[in-house]
């Protein structure tokens, strides 16, 4: 398979995972969270009583544009807006990650080329 084709296929698979398959992901607490919730009673992800490590956990410091993998200004704007927000947050997250990582690694590779050119001079 040619590199270009491989990259396009990989990007499409990644976008489908983040924008669509992610909507069907399990909403249960993950391994770390479930152990840290031991001792607490919970209802729909909220701690309602008891004593556990996660009670001490504060809210996220800055929230962020796509907090909790949604897009806050879309929430409740229209029917299905949360699903669209979750899907869009995934797609935008992938595109952003792709851009940031590719950019950083390109800088790193360029830096190396400049270094070896200097050594050769």
């Amino acid at each position, binding site marked *: *398979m*040619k*590199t270009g084709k*491989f*990259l396009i296929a*990989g990007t499409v698979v*990644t*976008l489908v*995972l*983040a924008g669509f398959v*992610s909507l069907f*992901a*399990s*909403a*249960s*607490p*993950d*391994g*770390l*969270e*479930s*152990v*840290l919730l*031991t*001792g607490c009673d919970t209802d729909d*992800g909220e701690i309602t009583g008891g*004593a*556990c*490590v*996660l009670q*001490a*956990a*504060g809210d*996220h*410091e*800055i929230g*962020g*544009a*796509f*907090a*909790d*993998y949604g897009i806050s200004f879309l929430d409740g704007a229209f029917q299905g807006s949360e699903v669209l927000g979750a899907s869009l947050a*995934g797609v935008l*997250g*992938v*595109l*952003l*990650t*792709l*851009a*940031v*990582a*590719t950019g*950083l*690694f390109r800088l*790193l*590779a*360029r830096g*190396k*080329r400049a270094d070896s050119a200097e050594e050769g001079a």
Partner: protein
Amino acid sequence: MSDLALHIPTDVIDGPTSLAAVLVAALVVGLCVVRARRHLDERLVPLAGLATAFIFAAQMLNFPIAAGVSGHLLGGALAAALLGPWLGALCVTVVIVIQALLFADGAVTALGLNVANMALIATFTAYAVLTLALKVLPRTRGGLAAAVFAAAVVSVVAASAGFVLQFWIGGEEVGQSFGAMAAAILGTHVLVGLGEAAITAGAVTAVALARPDLVHALRGTRLAQAPRDLKETA
């Protein structure tokens, strides 16, 4: 819906421990930058970018591991198998920083802790197991899949052991004893690791069949049943 992933949230580990983790993680990530650069060919850049985006997407996909408990890919084993330990650790680091700054996933103050566990411990452990396993196993599709599988399981348990250590130093036990918590964390992450292993083995095998030259762990060799033509198709 749950707003936390396998990432450490705010105020679970105390300030001094979190700060120490930032310093250690920054040092090791710096070393990764230096070492990754030596082997970073411009041809590899788009692949490394794609692998990073794939890990970001895969971390969103929580799969059930027991009643009411889920797990998700950490990605260290995938990154190590495709890109080697140094560049691989940088990929996972980029994902964790983006999650903390934009997705409220993992505390900003816990960045050092989360990078240490998921990007550094997981990736380096995976690479060590993978290298050892590939010394014993045949270079076939099955051999590669088995090596990657083993590397992924061990890497996830090692990452969770990183958390247990951090909690031992800077956490406060509530609701259960430290020993019970440690056992539960490690046990649960064996299950998470099995899920990670299945996904990673599938993904690495798929890449190895399409483009064996893009699998760092194969070091330029092809899988045994592929035609023995080492000409690059790039």
